């Protein structure tokens, strides 16, 4: 963390305690930026053989090199990451983070570097196509509480005459396994996960795609106290244009279609208003 915020009194109190050194997180101007990651979230970030790996890790290192900034990674469980960023315990959040309106009120997003869409998964040997898989009395699997469930309820189940029933599962692995048994006819899941299942050899195929265009981005503390948003935005665009981004992503998810950067920038995010930090030509009017 940057910037010494400690006032003298508590510092002196702490100093008198037995623990002494190692209590304070380092704080000086030359320090590397702390990048918070959720390291149990493959393919975005994970640990293998004691080393951080994943799309977000490699891309963040590439951006740091491109912009000449120093970074260090700090792992935290996902629910702790946004509070840590809001409390300025970490400087940058780099994981598969979806841009939402609620989040944009507490943290600032970089330009989107990924876009997820939902796909309709059907069994590999199925005759169903994108129309028949989700109509006419079909039972469709989703993860309970997921954005896919919300989308299906809002746009299909409650607002149209299409006759489908949603089956809600704890997680998508169970849903996909249940589809193999035949209890449901299709599963709606985000395309990144779908590609993972196919690459892992599960007997499924994509019948079609729903373009919801949910952006994923990096994030910094609200109002960018470290003034790094511009560097990150320029870095993201630079590694995309040099092709490095594509190589990194394909290394982790072979065969995936890479969304263009900058992608869809929702209006509700204030850092997407023109001019965007570091990239003054971009932004919503």
């Amino acid at each position, binding site marked *: 963390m940057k910037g010494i915020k400690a006032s003298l009194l508590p510092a002196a109190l702490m100093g008198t305690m037995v623990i002494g050194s190692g*209590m*304070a*997180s380092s704080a000086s101007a030359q320090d590397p930026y702390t990048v918070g990651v959720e390291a149990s979230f493959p393919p975005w970030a994970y640990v*293998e*053989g004691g080393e951080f790996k994943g799309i977000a890790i490699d891309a963040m290192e590439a951006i740091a090199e491109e912009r000449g900034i120093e970074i260090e990674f700090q792992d935290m469980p996902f629910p702790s990451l946004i*509070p840590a960023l809001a409390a*300025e315990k970490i400087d940058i959040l780099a994981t598969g983070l979806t841009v939402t309106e609620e989040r944009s009120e507490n943290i600032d997003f970089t330009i989107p570097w990924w876009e997820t869409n939902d796909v309709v998964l059907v069994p590999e040997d199925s005759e169903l196509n994108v129309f028949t898989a989700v109509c006419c009395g079909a039972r469709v699997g989703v993860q309970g509480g997921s954005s896919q469930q919300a989308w299906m309820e809002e746009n299909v189940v409650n607002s149209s005459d299409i006759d489908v029933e949603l089956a809600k599962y704890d997680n998508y692995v169970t849903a996909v396994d249940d589809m193999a048994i035949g209890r449901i006819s299709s599963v709606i899941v985000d395309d990144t996960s779908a590609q993972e299942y196919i690459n892992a050899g599960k007997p499924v195929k994509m019948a079609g795609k729903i373009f919801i265009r949910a952006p994923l981005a990096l994030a910094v503390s609200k109002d960018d106290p470290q003034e790094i948003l511009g560097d990150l935005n320029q870095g993201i665009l630079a590694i995309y244009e040099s092709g490095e981004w594509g190589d990194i992503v394909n290394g982790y998810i072979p065969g995936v279609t890479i969304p263009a950067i900058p992608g869809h920038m929702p209006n509700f995010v204030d850092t997407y208003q023109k001019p965007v930090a570091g990239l003054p030509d971009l932004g919503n009017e």
Partner: protein
Amino acid sequence: MDIYDVLLRDFPFLLKGLGVAIVLLAALLLIGFVLGIAICLVQLYGPRTRLVQWPLTLYERVFRGVPIIIMLFIFFYGMSGIFDISAFGAAILAMGLRSAAYQSQIFRSAFQSVPTGQMMAARAMGMSKVKAIRHILFPQAARHAIGPWTNEFSSEIKETSLAYVIGVVELTRQAHYIITSTQGNVLTVFAVVALLYFILNRTGNSLLYSLERKLAVPGFEK
């Protein structure tokens, strides 16, 4: 690579996680021990004014009454406005202060198990309060405290596993890494981790029990 090869390859990282847990445990027990004894002595033999006693009682009630996970969040996020504390420092402080509240009650019951007549007798023989505590009460109370203290030791070992919520990479978090990077194997990995916690717990408790036997006075109190 099957899960056993992965476990074998990553075993040093599990041990590293165990090391972090042990350092955390030692630090929090030390804080708890020093503060706990101090609180207990003031509660039993200190000034009886409310000004001194009430804050101690309040501290003890609050720290025994709030879940440790909440304390971890408060110390890590809540204190960041005053003091830029690291995750490890926050974990040591939150858990150490909580352990102090528990340990103060362990020591209080141990000191109270020594008959009150002994203090009176020591004072009657001209010993100061401090001397009486040091030479008469403490040696007896220490023996009584070891049994309940093994409980505190065991429960604190297990609670170190909660420190991962604020980003301390200890044994449980290292296990998560293996589980997520291999996309499964929950049972196998956590079985190994459970065994590591169990060995640490048994070793610590065995040492404490042997200390208890060593300090026992033959033919007395048993």
